[in-house]
Every structure is written in structure tokens, then in C-alpha cells.
């Protein structure tokens, strides 16, 4: 595939790995702990496992898989609300595929569907709008989910529904925003993260400007990265160089896609349709101020939260779950006592085991090659 194969080239990759080895070997001297690099985005986590990058890198480098998997950070109470809406007889509930298996306190959408709820898997909010046009006698609710990556497409769909005066369409909005979350993470005491690999797709929308505080206030380097293995290796090398030179800056490895100014049109649609919620709950991380958005009053008629009554009960994560510590890099997935025993992809307790972007599921399925649990089993 053109424009893709170049970024998966084994020879280029070997060259980059050698550079990383040389640099980190020099930096390693006198250091008593590994370099912890957090990749914020779930897409990066997926790519790291898919290409087996961890096993190719020196032991001194450790990836910490961050909170950038929107499915993983969705709290149980919100899943319960989804199920409650989906189970209304007049509703067609349209969702992205990977939200189907996320466990609520009683059931997942997949179970609700098996029990008779009309839940359809779609690939874009526009597909959901088309469902609404085709089924005027039904209420179509789209499960709006994701960071700034998917936020604009939901916003544009709402604007289109408004323009076409489609009355039987609404959004159950669970969109979240990355910046307040990164700030909350950085403000945690004892956060042992040395640098960040920044989310490529989110940045395509918001640009690189909003990350400046990471370097300026917290003194941590960040490199916004693409999703191919060469992108990730090059970004890692760029982070290490900053650390080596004692610099902290926001750099853009993914300039072929991410303009530093982002996408003003997409941001315009986001601005027009959503407002920040005072606070939003994240699974494993608790409530974070201004980290979620909801529809503005002008679009209230497209807001499923206002059109349907939902339980809106906050449900605590299972007590034994240590997703929060895993999300913040304080605990390796396999070090959680639930990992692979009572929490598996088949019966996930915590959301990190649900999505293939969740670090626990990724470890379980793709197998971190340094994972002692698996080495022991083998």
C-alpha cells in the first residue's frame, strides 16, 4: 500500500532502533529506573502491540499505556444509561462496534441486543442519521463517544440533522476532551512519566498549541506521533533526544497529517455544538473538571440525555479493580491481582480489558513479550 508501506519498512525500523539503543545506552549510565514514556492514545497502544515494538526496544525504555482509549475510560454508570435508552421500545440505538462489549453494572450493549434491544453497529454518526431518515416512526439515538478525533463528526451530524429538521434523531453524548485529562494526570503526585507520545488523530483536530503547558509548566517533552511503527519509533527517538539534551518541547512528528494550528473548521463545528460540562467521570480516574462536553441548549432537541430519562446513577468500579493505577502507569497490567484470573477479555471487570486498545486487553491478547505472567505460563 503506498504511503503506508514506507512507514512499516523493516530496514528503516532497524536503523531507528539502533539509534534508540545507542542513545539510551549512553543516557542509561547512572540511572536507576527505566525511561517511562506514555503513549496517550489507544491507537498507539494498539500499534505497539501489533508490531511487537516493546520486544525490539532496549529494556531501559518502558511504554506506559495512557488514558486515550475512549471505550476504556467510559464509566459503568454511563454504560447503564446507554442500556436504559437502548431498551426503550421505540429506540434504535446506534453505536460504534467496540463499545458493544463494555460492561455496565448489569449488562453490556451486546447483552441488551441479545435480549431484544434494537442496537445497530455503525461506522459513522452519519450512518445513524441515515437510519433516522429511513425509520421516521422510530427514535434513533447515536452513542457519541471519543476524544476530539470523533467529536467533529458528531457535531457536523447534529448540524446536518438541524438543517434537515430531522426530529427523531439524538446523541447520547460521551465525548471527552484530552487536555484537562492530561493536566489532571500531570498534577498527580508521584507520576513517574518522563515524556509523552502525543495523540496523532486528536492533534489533527486541535493542533499542537494546546499541549504547550506540558512542556512549559511541567517540563515534560511531548512528540505528536503518527500510527505506523516508523512514526512511533521516530517519535520515541525524538522524546529521548529531548531528555538527553535536557529540553522539554512540544514537537510534531506527524506533520504530514497534523497542522500545528489543527483544523479550524472542525474546531468551529465543535465550538458551535458543544459546551464543556462542569465535570465528567472517567473510569479508573474519577471525576475530572471540564473533561467532558455536552450539547449546547440550542441543540437540546438532539440531546438524548434531555429526551430520555436515564438512571444517572454513579456506579463505583469494582473494588478489586486497579484500572486507575494501570492508566496512570503506576501499575503494570499483569501486576493487577485480577489480571487474567477474574478479569479476562471474556469476562472483563475493568474496562481496560474490554477494548483492543485497552492496555490490559492488549497485554492479554497480543502478549507483552516482557510480560512475566506469560513467560511463566510458557
Amino acid at each position, binding site marked *: *500500500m503506498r504511503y*503506508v508501506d514506507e512507514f*512499516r519498512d*523493516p530496514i528503516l*525500523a*532497524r536503523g531507528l532502533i539502533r539509534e534508540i539503543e545507542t542513545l539510551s545506552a549512553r543516557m542509561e549510565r547512572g540511572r536507576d529506573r527505566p525511561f517511562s514514556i506514555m503513549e496517550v*492514545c*489507544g*491507537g498507539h497502544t*494498539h500499534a505497539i*502491540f*501489533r*508490531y*511487537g*515494538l*516493546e*520486544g*525490539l526496544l532496549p529494556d531501559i525504555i518502558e511504554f506506559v499505556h495512557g488514558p486515550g482509549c*475512549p*471505550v476504556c475510560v467510559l464509566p459503568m454508570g454511563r454504560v447503564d444509561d446507554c442500556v436504559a435508552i437502548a431498551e426503550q421500545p421505540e429506540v434504535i440505538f446506534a453505536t*460504534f*462496534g*467496540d*463499545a*458493544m*462489549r463494555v460492561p455496565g453494572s448489569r449488562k453490556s450493549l*451486546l447483552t441488551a441486543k441479545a435480549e431484544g434491544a434494537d442496537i445497530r*453497529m*455503525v*461506522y459513522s454518526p452519519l*450512518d445513524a442519521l441515515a437510519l433516522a431518515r429511513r425509520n421516521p416512526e422510530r427514535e434513533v439515538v447515536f452513542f457519541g*463517544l*471519543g*476524544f476530539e*478525533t*470523533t467529536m467533529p463528526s458528531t457535531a457536523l451530524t447534529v448540524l446536518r440533522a438541524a438543517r434537515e429538521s430531522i426530529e427523531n434523531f439524538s446523541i447520547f453524548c460521551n465525548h471527552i476532551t484530552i487536555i484537562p485529562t492530561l493536566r489532571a494526570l500531570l498534577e498527580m503526585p508521584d507520576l513517574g512519566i518522563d515524556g509523552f507520545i502525543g495523540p496523532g*488523530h486528536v492533534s489533527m483536530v486541535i493542533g499542537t498549541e494546546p499541549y504547550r503547558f506540558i512542556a512549559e509548566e511541567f517540563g515534560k517533552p511531548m512528540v505528536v506521533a503518527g500510527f505506523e*511503527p516508523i512514526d512511533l519509533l521516530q517519535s520515541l527517538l525524538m522524546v529521548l533526544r529531548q531528555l538527553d539534551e535536557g529540553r522539554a518541547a512540544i514537537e510534531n512528528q506527524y506533520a504530514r497529517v497534523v497542522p500545528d494550528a489543527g483544523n479550524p473548521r472542525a474546531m468551529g463545528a465543535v465550538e458551535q455544538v458543544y459546551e464543556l460540562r462542569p465535570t465528567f467521570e472517567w473510569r479508573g480516574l474519577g471525576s475530572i473538571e471540564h473533561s467532558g462536553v455536552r450539547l449546547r441548549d440550542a441543540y437540546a432537541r438532539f440531546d438524548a440525555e434531555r429526551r430520555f430519562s436515564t438512571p444517572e446513577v454513579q456506579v463505583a468500579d469494582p473494588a478489586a479493580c486497579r484500572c486507575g493505577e494501570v492508566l496512570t502507569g503506576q501499575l503494570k497490567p499483569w501486576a493487577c491481582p485480577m489480571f487474567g484470573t477474574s478479569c479476562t*477479555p*471474556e469476562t472483563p471487570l475493568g474496562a481496560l480489558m474490554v*477494548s*483492543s*486498545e485497552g492496555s490490559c486487553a492488549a497485554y*492479554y*491478547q*497480543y*502478549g507483552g*513479550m516482557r510480560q512475566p505472567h*506469560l513467560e511463566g505460563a*510458557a
Partner: protein
Amino acid sequence: MNNAFPIPVRAPRRALPKSVTLAHGGGGSAMRDLIDEVFIDTFKSTTGAPEDQARFDLAALMAQGDRLAFTTDGFVVDPLFFPGGDIGKLAVCGTINDLAVGAARPVALSCAVIIEEGLPLATLRSVARSMAETAHAAGVPIVTGDTKVVARGACDKLFITTTGIGVVRTGIEVGIGRARPGDVILVNGQLGDHGAAILNARGDLALETAIESDCAALHGLIDALVAAAPGVRTMRDATRGGVAAVLNELAAASGVGVRIRELDTPIRSDVLGFCEILGLDPLYLANEGKIVAVVPPDQAAAALQALRDHPLGRGAAAIGRVTDTRPGRVVMETRLGGDRIVDMLVGDQLPRIC
């Protein structure tokens, strides 16, 4: 005999209506007409005289091998027609392949259809024709069958169950638990075509691709493979769950490790692109014309050549080896030289959103 008009032995057939109704399942003349016209007439090319059961000459069967193989499979694919095939072709090929991978020569098939009331008759005819053509081309007759019509909503358009019998060649022993370290793992071509074609044909993706299902009857290919590599350990058709599911079963049942190489695993670029867009993994996509064969190392070259010499095996490749490390695990060496574990899926693959 000087009758001016021949006296019909039974009432003349009425023209069938445009779609199937419950009356066609009622056991009366409407049902007989449907069965006669749509199935018996169509399958005639392969069946000979219709009876309530098929009968086989045991001596003729025993001349072909020393064990009888017996298998059944239900087909509920949606949509009924897709690029590269349809439910009828799939139902014939699927059961032939289930027999063939057990080193059996397919002898005959049965066909039971469950029809949802309201199915257009043209659709049913077209599926029956496709079954007949596929069976004829494969040289495996459909010798008995059954038809049921159920009320709207009680099934989805058309379900087909085919059952097959075959005779296992004398002296060939295959089994999923027979793989040994050092054995070579072969596939007969590009992986994931069927799964991608079906997902695409469901139409809700609006992707413009020309991916066709690989649906094919593989008994001829397997004949060639077994002749070239009589020591073949096991063969499996990589249907639901894809090659990943077969390799995991192999690793578990044989108590061995499996190591495959991404760079040696043949996948069409349009299937790769399709998977890329949807966040799917082609190793888990279904195939309907692909087998995984495990052969001892000294027969691997001959086996691979035999596959490549057959029209259904031109894209054949050795994708990896059976190992004695990490028993029960399937590991893929990625194109970059890293390792990843290829596990069983819990359920269906669900597309990722970002």
C-alpha cells in the same frame, strides 16, 4: 392406446407464485410443486431418480478407502448473494471442504432448506441453481433433501444445512493433535477474502472495493496435496475465526507452539486496506476456500509445489513452523521483527473507532 389426449399421471403443475408462502411448506400439492420445480428439476443433473432417501453401494464405497466420513454444516449467511458466491455455493463448498480436510473423498451431499415466507421465488431458484452448478462442477451429487417454510420472522430469508459423506483414503491419518515441532505450516493462498467480502457486501460501510469471496470446493486441491505429502499431519479449512482460530486449535490440541511470519503471510492489498480502515485483523477473517495444512519438514517442498500447481493454490505459501517453545501459543513475528501473540478471539471482531 388411442387416447387423443394423454391422461396426466398427476395434476399438472400450476405456475408457482412470485414468492414462497406458508402453503409451500404445508405438505400439499403446493409444496410438491415447489420441491419438484425448484429443487428436483434443478438438482436432476446430479441426482438421478428422486427417492425419499439416497442409497449407496457399499462395495463401491469400500473400494475408495477404509473409513466413512460424515459431516454437517448450517449456512445462514447474510446477504444471500455476495461478490464471489452465494449461500448455495457456500453450502455445497463448505461441506465438501469439511470432508476433504479429513482426507476423505466426498461422495454425496444432502440439502435441507428452511425458507422464510415471502422469499422471492426467483431468489430461491437462483440459489438452487447455484447449488446444482457447484455440485456438478465438483462432481459431488446432492442426493437427498428437505424443505420447510416458516412464518415471516421465524428465520432470516433462507437457511441451508448440507450434510456430506465421504470415504477416507486408506493409510492417511490426519488429526489436529498430530503436529510435531519442526513441521511446516502451509496455506493455499491469500487470507481473509471471504470475511472482507461479506462485511463489505452488507453495504453499511459504503467502501468501494472489488474484494470477492474465495468460496471454492477444495477436494481437488487436497487430492494433489495428499498425493505429494502423504505424511500430512492435519488440514483445516480456515472458516470462522480465520487462520488465527485454526492455529490456536492446533497449538492447543497438539501441545506445541506455532510461529508464523507476517512477511510470509499472503494477504491481498485491498483486504489489508479494508482491515486498516475498519481496525480489523485479517488473520481473524473467515475464508471459504483456504486451508491450513501442517506437513512434516521433509515433505514441505513437495506439498507447497503441489498446492501452487493447482488453480486454487497459486498463492500458496509456507507461513511458519510448529515449535517446541511456548506450547499452546501462536506467535507471529511482525514485519519489523517483533513478536506478538495471536490469541483466540472472544467473540466477533468489532471495528475500532480510532
